[in-house]
């Protein structure tokens, strides 16, 4: 098992390295350099950019270096924690990332917990009451839940909150707490701002997971070992929860990576609409203003989040399924 963990971790590091190459490649693909775009943007805003400044910037980013040197500089910065300066946010990218990563991770974990906690029981109910009225209602809600784009749902929820709830939404804190010291009240205020985006992020994945759970469990319930358990005299609730659900979770854990990817994607878009300071929001914001090097750095960080999630899912799979243990 230890060998399995070590091998899986080494593999994850390699994957992150490969992802950083991909991210860098995409950025390099852009016609012109990120720096010219930035200079023209600064000039357009009325800033005076001297040739010396241009040179300094070019020096810093090594515009005229071969790509391998540029990659080395950028990747070296990634490893040492020196991510450069963000034009868009006017602060070091390092500060940008560390302050936002916490919220991103918290939202992702929160979303996963909510999605699983809702999807598993509903999926079990749906699979054990197939084609009943509640099952049909659940199915319809699922399809619509998957079909609504996150940003649209976010907009609709915000509008509804303002119109009928009279709540101001958006941002992480209310005005009075924005610069206040941390306190229970401030924390409560933050939670008050977070639950709505969390729900919006979770809806699509929950709907999808419910469908997966329903289909999986229904397949498992048709398996011979379920009849074996019933034939032993095991009570029906135990047949379902001990014998069936345990096996139906297996594909759910296997799709953990897909779920996490969808949640991170959703989080990025929803954070834009709700103006939440997350890594995904910073990435999209950087992309919108063409701050591409910062975007590449943030993209690598989001991928690291996903890769770690995949490692956890593989370990979880080995834990719940004895067959995966020996295969790994």
């Amino acid at each position, binding site marked *: 098992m230890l060998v399995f963990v070590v091998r899986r971790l080494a593999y994850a590091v390699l*994957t*992150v390295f*490969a*992802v950083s190459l*991909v*991210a860098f490649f*995409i*950025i390099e*693909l*852009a*016609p012109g350099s990120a720096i010219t775009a930035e200079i023209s943007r600064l000039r357009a805003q009325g800033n005076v950019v001297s040739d010396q400044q241009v040179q300094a910037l070019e020096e810093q980013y090594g515009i005229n270096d071969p790509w391998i040197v540029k990659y080395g500089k950028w990747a070296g910065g990634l490893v040492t924690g020196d991510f450069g300066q963000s034009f868009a946010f006017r602060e070091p990218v390092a500060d940008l990332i560390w302050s936002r990563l916490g919220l991103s991770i918290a939202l992702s974990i929160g979303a996963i917990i909510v999605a699983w906690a809702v999807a598993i029981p509903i999926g079990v109910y749906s699979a054990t009451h197939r084609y009943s009225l509640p099952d049909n209602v659940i199915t319809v809600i699922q*399809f*619509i839940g*998957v*079909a*609504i*784009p*996150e*940003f*649209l749902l976010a*907009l*609709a929820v*915000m*509008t509804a909150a*303002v*119109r009928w709830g009279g709540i101001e*939404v*958006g941002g992480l804190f209310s005005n009075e707490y924005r610069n206040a010291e941390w306190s229970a009240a401030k924390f409560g205020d933050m939670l008050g701002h977070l639950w709505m985006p969390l729900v919006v992020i979770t809806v699509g994945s929950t709907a999808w997971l419910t469908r997966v759970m329903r289909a999986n469990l229904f397949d498992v319930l048709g398996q011979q070992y379920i009849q074996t358990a019933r034939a032993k005299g095991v009570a029906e609730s135990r047949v379902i929860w001990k014998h069936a659900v345990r096996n139906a979770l297996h594909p759910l854990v296997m799709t953990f*990576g897909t779920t*996490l*990817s*969808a949640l*991170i*994607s*959703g989080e*990025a*878009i929803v954070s*834009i*609409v709700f103006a939440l300071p997350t890594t*995904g929001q910073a*990435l*999209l914001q950087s*992309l*919108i203003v*063409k701050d*591409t090097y910062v*975007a*590449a750095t*943030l*993209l690598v960080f*989001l*991928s690291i*989040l*996903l*890769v770690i999630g*995949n490692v956890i899912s593989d370990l979880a799979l080995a834990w719940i399924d004895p067959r995966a243990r020996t295969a790994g």
Partner: protein
Amino acid sequence: MTATAQISGAGLDEGTSSGTGGPVAPDSKIGEVSQRSLMLRRFRRSKLAVVSLVILLLMYLAAIFAGFLSPNDPAAVNQEYKYAAPSAWTWSGGPAICRVTQEIDPINISTTYVTNCDQPIPLQFFSRGYEYELFGLIPTDRHLFTVPEGRVLVFGADGNGRDLFSRTIHGAQVSLTIGLLGVVVATVLGSIIGTISGYAGGAADTVIQRVIEIIMSVPTIPLWATMAAVMPQDLSVTQRYFVMTMILSLVAWTGLARQVRGKVMGYASADYVAAARSANASGFRIVTTHLLPNAASHIVAVSMLAIPATILAETALSFLGIGMLDPAISWGVLLQDASRVDVLQQYLWVLIPGVAVVLAITCFQLLGDGVRDAVDPYS
């Protein structure tokens, strides 16, 4: 027991159903029904999928005849109709709309609209309106319906007074095809790469699987967004459209390739492939005559299920301003108008293109499910 013990373990099933030329065949209808018509039969049974197919066909028809169905030029800006509400309908020897006049409050600099139904404006059918090219070829100015004066606004108007109904229909031309085309390209890519991976095996398989894993290790929307953002800014609408298609397919092929690989590996170990191989058939022949035709229906089903994600992606990216950009009309571009809560508060109809998105994606999901169930009833 001696005599009975002589009986071998021959099964009854073998003895009865597939005998040595007994009179079984004439009664049996098995084999007369083709695989394809069985699939069709199974598909027809899922009513939701059939209804979805009809709705989608109607949406695509609307996209094709967008110019004919639009009463107003979707690009025509008119500040007199800024955020004008959907027209009020009435009856005057036929369907008609009420007159609307704009009033500007000079103090708040806000506009209000006064509706007057005393002198309704009747609709004209198959009438002349703005000029457009049917199918992008035939110049004409015939429209299904127009009004002789003012503007008929079925869904209301956007912040520039443009007709949201006409824009939503025209948006379908981009939004309903970009995802579809992206998936088509992804399917071709995924089928080729997946087949190579599954059939060749060995080093090629390992490399391809690693590449897929790396692409899948990047969250989808951020990856799409990054690729879309590095697109050159000075592309024409058409160029942008095709680059978007490429971007969507560059990520979407991975999942399809995995599915195809799995299927190909399954079929490649089947006896008839071994037979073909022992008959010295070339690898290319085996793939094209045995593997791909078998996997085809499965590939179609998996591809259908991949369409919603690409449509959603185009909409989201365009909404963020890094996909299709304003002179282009797509549902995502239209929804940019809805990105401000204060606008949404007053002019709820700017969300109508979103309804089109949800409807299209729900239908694609149901259709995909129906096709999958028809193709793979046991999966």
